[in-house]
């Protein structure tokens, strides 16, 4: 049990740190939240920069510990987050790497790494959220293509995506978990309509997607036909297991900023505020330790992260919301001003106990899959 990094890992860290110090100042200015083409260009540009410097595949090929160092250092340096590349880099890509054929890996992985293609996730539907397996979007086989019809909801980044990891029902007769397939759907295919939805933060972060007789080549199916539920579990374990770890470092940094603000405006003199700051510090420190633990365990067992990601997500999502609650208290009336960056973050933190599986669903997973309690 140790927390020391190996000499090679420290070399990686030092080199990365040095590179970030040179690369970050030449970044273009950040686009506004609603400028989607701008955001796409910005996020892909950053991915391309990473690619050129040899860091593009750090989420996939590097050892988990190296990935941890990467997330820690980029976050600490204030480098851009994965943004529009989230789905491609953090769960569609890893799923294809784990479950795809050689051709599929060759077709889809390099463009993700080079910052050329953006992916989105078409899982949820109007009547299939938590109960994802009850999804209804149909795919009928027609020669070498599936003909897909239905609709998807809450599709993040759909407006700028090139590809969608899409769940469809390929067998309407089978029990609900057994008739699902995982497809890579080109977003520019005829019959795909994207209608942006406005979030409570006022942005158009996600969208509604209508699919009307969309032809998707059978060759785009990842995993066997009707075996999509199993593939989905792989995707979700990446999404819950590893996708949020960089954000823990970010939250810790925000916490320091909140303390600074509290000192500046006198909120610090309130021992109740100080104690909550202290508690949250304990919380984010422990979440980082949990990350290091999971990474070390993952490195020992290799491959796909387990359901332990649910433990992390449950605690992290709540801590993140508490962080912004406290920030708002420290700000006082300032917390009602949309011009203050924390206010938008406070609003967006509300999604963390919902997106990628609600806290209730995570508790079911922990109860049933980790503790072995019977299903309801």
């Amino acid at each position, binding site marked *: *049990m*140790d*927390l*020391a*990094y*190996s000499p090679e*890992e420290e070399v990686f860290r030092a080199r990365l740190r040095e590179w970030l110090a040179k690369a970050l100042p030449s970044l273009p200015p950040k686009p506004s939240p609603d400028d989607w083409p701008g955001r796409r260009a910005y996020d892909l540009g950053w991915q391309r920069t990473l690619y050129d410097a040899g860091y593009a595949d750090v989420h996939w090929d590097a050892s988990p*510990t190296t990935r*941890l160092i990467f997330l820690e250092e980029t976050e600490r340096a204030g480098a851009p987050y994965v943004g529009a590349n989230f789905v491609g880099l953090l769960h569609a890509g890893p799923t294809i790497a784990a479950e795809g054929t050689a051709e599929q890996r060759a077709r889809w992985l390099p463009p993700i790494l080079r910052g050329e293609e953006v992916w989105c996730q078409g899982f949820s539907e109007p009547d299939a959220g938590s109960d994802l397996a009850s999804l209804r979007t149909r795919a009928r086989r027609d020669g070498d293509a599936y003909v897909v019809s239905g609709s998807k909801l809450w599709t993040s980044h759909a407006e700028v995506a090139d590809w969608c990891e899409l769940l469809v029902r390929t067998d309407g007769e089978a029990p609900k978990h057994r008739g699902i397939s995982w497809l890579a759907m080109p977003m520019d295919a005829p019959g795909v309509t994207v209608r942006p939805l406005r979030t409570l933060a006022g942005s158009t972060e996600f969208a509604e997607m209508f699919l009307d007789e969309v032809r998707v080549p059978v060759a785009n199916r990842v995993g066997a036909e009707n075996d999509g539920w199993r593939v989905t579990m792989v995707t979700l374990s990446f999404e819950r297991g590893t996708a949020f770890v960089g954000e823990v470092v970010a939250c810790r940094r925000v*916490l*320091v*900023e*909140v*303390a*600074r603000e509290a*000192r500046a405006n006198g909120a*610090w003199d309130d*021992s109740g505020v*100080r*104690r*909550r*700051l*202290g*508690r949250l*510090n*304990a*919380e984010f*420190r*422990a*979440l980082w*330790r*949990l990350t*290091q*633990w999971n*990474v*070390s*365990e993952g*490195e*020992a067992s290799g491959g796909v992260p387990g359901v*332990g990601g649910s*433990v992390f997500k*449950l*605690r992290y999502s709540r801590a993140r919301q508490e962080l912004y609650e406290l920030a708002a208290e420290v700000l006082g009336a300032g917390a009602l001003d949309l011009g203050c960056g924390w206010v938008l973050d406070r609003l967006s933190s509300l999604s963390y106990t919902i997106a990628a599986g609600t806290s*209730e669903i*995570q*508790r*079911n997973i*922990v*109860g*049933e899959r*980790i*503790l*072995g*309690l*019977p*299903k*309801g």
Partner: protein
Amino acid sequence: MRFRLTEDQRVLKSGFREVLARRFRTEELRGAVDGSGGLDRRLWRELGEVGLFSLRLAEDEGGVGLGVPEAVLVFEEAGRALLPGPLVATHLAAGVVPGAATGETVVTAVGGGGLVEWLDEADVVTGDAAGAVPLRSVDPATPLHRVPGGGSSVRPDDLFVLLTAAEQVGTAARTCEAAVQHARTREQFGRPIGSFQAVKHLCAELLVRVEVARVAVYAAAVTVDPVDIAAARLLADEAAVRGARDSLQVHGGSGFTWEADVHLCLKRAWVRAERGGSITESEELLAGELLVEAG
């Protein structure tokens, strides 16, 4: 970075768990609760023989020569077993107080809140226990004294706090397992109560608190950093105290009885939370670190 148990650590932990499972069964726990025989000196010496007290003492001084992480692992097991006695104080006295390492001498200490455990049974006291008055201890397996006015001035040392936190994690894990076990077997409305979400979710949160506290304690054992230790104790206290309360809820009426172990876990967790010193102080220490970073 290899933040996971090594094979040796795994063996040490499970080995100690087995020793306790053989030597400190329900009968012994109940014996300690009845308070019939006072502190079990024979058990104390046996704990000495298996190295609980001398674990961190150098080998040429008759110790086992292991480190703080290993100590944390065995104290976690001690906490899981609800092993009574001033274990942490005696462990910390090994190599300082003659006989402590072998379990010949029972050493207690003045802890947070001016509390002294097992004062009448101890051979040696660390700290000034002059004028200590007996309390009717809430924990039937831990006799308590209190040094009047000693509460605020006494700040336990970091290792004392950390090993106490390790015990809390063990107790928290025990309450979680007990809750899950009960939820799996107890039936109401024709099915196991663990299939009801209200119960299942209590159990899930129990586990989450244990896991988070455990990594915090392990990390603090590696760094021995005061801020890490403060964080670890806050999370471990929470896991043990809240955990016992939630476990009691899952047990229903049977959880409110003397026969169930839940109350023993809760009461011991309370004692340890106090022993770890002022919670506010730990929180303030953690808050202070943020300001240092804020520059």
